[in-house]
């Protein structure tokens, strides 16, 4: 007799993941088949982008539902679909960046794209995982290709060192997380996130101090894996070194997509695992909002203070990305519907401005060989277009109106203020002070561009037309969304219509 296989039918809900898997194989085969062709790189990029576009189309076709798939392993609700969309958009930009960058050798572009799509597949699964096993598998599927891509420049000392630091921190964090998961499984007797939440709350209420302590230890250990993925304190140390050493097109992708997927997984872990929304302070339970709020304050402060003294722009943007993880963590700590809306709204905006900033860094590095702030001196005269869009991206990262970054931050802070709790008022104040600090180091680059003369008379910096077009495609929405954010907010609202 056949067992009941009804639960194995994913239907159209996993079509995006299937398309991504197909893309991996297509690029793999084409990479081998076109080994001697002169147009190999262009064909591979085209196939990758078409595959990603097909996956995005498939996402648009999925009818979102809170119904779990595959015996509760995955769920394709609006929240997951939205994050998948952001991740795939980042992958498209990441693939084009790789094709534009001289840091990725032409004959290795195929390998790079295969790993990039694998990574994207992992992040799509991560966004929908609602079981500890699936969560762990997806997280590893994100991590393993990332380690390889960080060390993609063979023979380069800095790239090798970056990859080693990444893999050591990553493996350690995922080991701690797995140990935390094993304790949660021991406590709850199920790997299902909602089931764990129910059991943990029950245990915490009934059990004595030891049971509560075990819950706290288990959740703290589990947090390690998420904190590492989003580069939050105290698991942020890998971030600056990896950003400095790894190839720039990968860093641009790394700073956005895994962070988005990591925040999606963190939100689901806390909200479906521990009841939504997290009241503050929850009676009879451990005050997780408080713990996350303290982590958020520490993350933004460490990121912003360390960024002030950086000379290398990639390192500076690494600390800036830590700071942004702090702002997002603040909203996760709040956990209210408005906060989730804020996080979802922030992710695509962050994609635009951060990937844009890295694209400018890449263009300047390719033209001048410099990655330092001094390398941007006089950019306003040497490449006005680059300098202007860089200013747009940096001011948007600071959160100055009327740029998109302001709208993103506005919702995050509004969520914190809406709680009407003294603690979150304090977190919001720390966040605002941090935003002011961040203006200093972002403006330093802009000042170098427009107010300082280049060290020696240099030729104009040239940007290729594909890079210029991509920059425009990132900069224009950054400007427009700051004034006209309604449509994006509408998409976010639609994504959250369904119950989690």
């Amino acid at each position: 007799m056949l067992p009941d296989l009804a639960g194995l039918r994913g239907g159209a809900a996993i079509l995006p993941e299937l398309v991504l898997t197909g893309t991996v194989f297509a690029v793999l085969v084409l990479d081998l088949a076109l080994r001697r062709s002169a147009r190999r790189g262009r064909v591979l990029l085209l196939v990758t982008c078409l595959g990603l576009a097909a996956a995005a189309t498939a996402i648009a076709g999925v009818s979102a539902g809170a119904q779990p798939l595959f015996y509760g392993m995955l769920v394709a609700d609006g929240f997951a679909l939205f994050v998948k969309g952001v991740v795939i958009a980042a992958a498209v930009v990441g693939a084009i960046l790789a094709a534009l960058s001289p840091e990725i050798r032409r004959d290795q572009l195929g390998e790079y794209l295969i790993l990039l799509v694998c990574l994207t597949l992992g992040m799509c699964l991560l966004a929908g995982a609602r079981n500890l096993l699936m969560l762990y598998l997806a997280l590893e599927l994100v991590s393993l290709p990332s380690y390889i891509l960080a060390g993609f420049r063979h023979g380069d000392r800095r790239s090798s060192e970056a990859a080693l630091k990444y893999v050591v921190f990553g493996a350690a964090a995922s080991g701690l997380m797995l140990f935390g998961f094993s304790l949660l499984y021991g406590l709850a007797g199920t790997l299902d996130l909602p089931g764990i939440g129910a059991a943990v709350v029950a245990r915490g209420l009934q059990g004595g101090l030891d049971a509560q302590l075990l819950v706290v230890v288990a959740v703290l250990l589990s947090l390690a894996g998420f904190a590492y993925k989003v580069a939050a304190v105290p698991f942020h140390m890998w971030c600056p070194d990896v950003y400095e050493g790894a190839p720039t097109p990968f860093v641009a992708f790394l700073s956005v997509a895994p962070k988005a997927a990591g925040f999606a997984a963190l939100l689901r872990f806390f909200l479906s695992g521990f009841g939504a929304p997290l009241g503050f302070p929850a009676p009879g339970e451990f005050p997780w909002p408080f713990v996350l709020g303290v982590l958020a304050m520490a993350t933004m402060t460490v990121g912003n203070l360390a960024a002030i003294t950086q000379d290398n722009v990639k390192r500076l943007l690494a600390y800036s990305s830590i700071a942004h993880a702090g702002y997002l963590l603040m909203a996760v700590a709040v956990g209210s519907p408005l906060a989730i809306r804020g996080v979802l709204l922030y992710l695509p905006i962050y994609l635009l401005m951060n990937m844009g900033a890295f694209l400018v860094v890449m263009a300047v590095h390719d033209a001048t060989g410099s990655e330092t702030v001094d390398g941007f001196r006089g950019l306003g005269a040497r490449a006005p277009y680059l300098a202007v869009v860089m200013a747009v991206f940096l001011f948007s990262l600071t959160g100055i109106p009327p740029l998109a970054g302001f709208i993103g931050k506005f919702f995050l802070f509004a969520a914190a203020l809406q709680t009407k709790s003294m603690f979150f008022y304090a977190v919001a104040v720390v966040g605002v002070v941090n935003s002011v600090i961040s203006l200093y180091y972002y403006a330093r680059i802009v000042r170098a561009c427009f107010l300082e003369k280049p060290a020696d008379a240099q030729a104009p910096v040239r940007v290729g037309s594909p890079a210029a077009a991509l920059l425009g495609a990132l900069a224009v929405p950054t400007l427009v969304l700051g004034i006209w954010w309604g449509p994006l907010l509408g998409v976010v609202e639609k994504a959250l219509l369904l119950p989690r």
Partner: protein
Amino acid sequence: MSIGLGHFVAVSALLFSLGLFCLITRRNAVAILMGIELILNAALLNLAAFSRYLHGQPDGQIFAVFGIVLAAAEAVVALAIVLQLYRAFRTVDTAETTELKG
């Protein structure tokens, strides 16, 4: 005296502590990876033991099987990176491979 859940959890806790100690004190990249492997195995032992003694469901043991495969995959990638590091620096001592400040 029969072997029970307590024994397994004690061994797992010991493995975890040894792994963490190894991770913190070692400077050799390969030794650090061995420490991480100990932590992973502690977690997998926990999962299998909880599944057998507490819950009577096979899901924890299935998790352990997946975990073993993933640990192997992770070791492959990590050792390849260590090899690449050795080619670039001629050493796997993490105290000496410091081109990036920080």
